[in-house]
């Protein structure tokens, strides 16, 4: 996974970057399976590796396939991201162990989820659709808005198709 990330950063050819990020998504999906988050892994494999790769290739079809040389030296952004990453790793040391039953997150509201008055064996589904129904409604609306935004931006106008093509 680290190799593919480094390769994504180094490579200038956008086509190989897209393929590599697809490979990265698949590796990420396997990591998520190993962490017992099968629902997320499924989404990652289908969206990250499948659909978004195709969409990026479609977008690549519209532009040049070589990345432009950066105008600035990337030292400041690099320093910011490295220090943020270091801070996050430092913070992660303070977290309880993975799967620790005494972790605070398992004491609060999770027992009620596990008791599951909804009586749906998959707790993830129960939480998403029932306990957190409003959130999921919001998410669905976000997806809808994204689709509507793409339609509004890319729909070819009937009057002046030449104009939109020039912009692209």
């Amino acid at each position, binding site marked *: 996974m680290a190799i593919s990330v480094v390769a994504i950063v180094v490579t200038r050819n956008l086509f190989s970057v897209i393929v590599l990020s697809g490979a990265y998504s698949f590796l990420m999906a396997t990591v998520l399976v190993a962490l017992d988050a*099968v*629902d997320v892994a*499924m*989404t990652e494999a*289908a*969206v990250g590796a*499948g*659909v978004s790769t*195709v*969409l990026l290739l*479609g*977008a690549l*079809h*519209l532009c040049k396939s070589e990345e432009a040389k950066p105008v600035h030296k990337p030292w400041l952004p690099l320093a910011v991201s490295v220090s943020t990453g270091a801070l996050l790793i430092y913070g992660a040391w303070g977290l309880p162990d993975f799967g620790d039953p005494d972790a605070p997150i398992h004491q609060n509201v999770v027992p009620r989820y596990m008791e599951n*008055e*909804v*009586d*749906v*064996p*998959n707790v*993830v*589904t*129960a939480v*998403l*659709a*029932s306990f957190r*129904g*409003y959130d*999921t*409604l919001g*998410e*669905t*609306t976000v*997806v*809808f808005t*994204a*689709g*509507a935004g*793409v*339609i509004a931006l*890319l*729909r*070819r106008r009937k009057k002046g*198709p030449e104009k939109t*093509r020039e912009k*692209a």
Partner: protein
Amino acid sequence: MKNDLVLRVLGRLMIPAILLFALYVQFHGDFGPGGGFQAGVIAAAGIIFYALIHGVAATRRLVPDGVVETMVASGVLIYAGVGLAGLLLGGHYLDYSVLSHDPVHGQHRGIFWVEVGVATTVCGVMLKIFYMFASRGNSED
């Protein structure tokens, strides 16, 4: 890529399996991993696979733009409608317990329809975005 025998045969074999798996993920989401979002994405991926083999024009005939746009909107409406149904039956908004005589059964029913709504919108949006990008590309050629 229509003339590639390997791709065509593979597509024949896999696309029904992908769509069937999407349905399985959708309706088995209560018991196994999965749910509306995953099912919608998998179904969309199957149709996009078809489009990669047979071209966007053929896919547009199979799944027309009107259907896709209707799916985009109707999914959210189904979800919100479940909420309103709860409201009309005397519960809170998005309270599924009142949807049936038995609260647990009502929850199941509510979750089922909510997931249907999520899957419909997600599948529609993915397909619509794909159509948008792909058709733009073709006009440039």
